[in-house]
């Protein structure tokens, strides 16, 4: 089941977050590993519904807080965040690709939230691969105890034919 929510501040800056569930059927097309098939994996989509300029820190912090709450409530949840490489994003650092900017922003959000909330049991697993000389980024966010499983999943994705 997909889950969606929006974070809104007093200036009507709104970020929508959509969590798309990878059902066993989708995962079953790439693996028969029971440890992987038993995981609750969600793809994370972030979309700015309204607002201009930089997204406020409080809004980003609230996005992180809600995602971490969901992981805490259902400990076997794993978030996969694939950084969009096909649409541009406003940014000062034009030497960065859109996907690198999104990846860095996601990591900064995660690190800032973890540092300020004494979160030590979650991992932000960043994976970078090259496609025709261009870097692509995807993240897994999960409890540390699932580190082996996400590395297995990553290896399956990388080796699948």
């Amino acid at each position, binding site marked *: 089941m997909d889950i969606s929510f929006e974070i809104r501040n007093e200036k009507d800056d709104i970020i*929508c977050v959509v969590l798309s569930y990878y059902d066993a059927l989708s995962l079953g097309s790439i693996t028969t590993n029971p440890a992987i098939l038993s995981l609750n994996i969600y793809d994370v989509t972030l979309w700015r519904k309204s607002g201009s300029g930089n997204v406020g820190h409080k809004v980003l912090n609230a996005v992180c807080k809600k995602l971490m709450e969901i992981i805490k409530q259902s400990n076997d949840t794993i978030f996969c965040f694939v950084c969009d490489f096909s649409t541009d994003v406003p940014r000062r650092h034009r030497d960065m690709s859109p996907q690198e900017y999104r990846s860095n922003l996601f990591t900064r959000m995660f690190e800032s939230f973890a540092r300020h909330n004494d979160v030590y049991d979650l*991992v*932000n*697993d960043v994976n970078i691969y*090259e496609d025709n000389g261009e870097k692509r980024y995807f993240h897994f966010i999960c409890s540390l105890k699932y580190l082996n499983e996400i590395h297995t999943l990553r290896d399956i994705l990388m080796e699948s034919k």
Partner: protein
Amino acid sequence: MTQITIIRNPSPSVKKFFDGLVDKKHQQIKKLEEGQECNFTIKV
């Protein structure tokens, strides 16, 4: 904790897999642009 892994020489199917996910993201965004409501709102 953040870990970074750089993957050398991924298989061609990786591109297809992740292109598919990005396409799915665009479909999700299109639904939102067309007025689909989120399940709940958090005010900060």
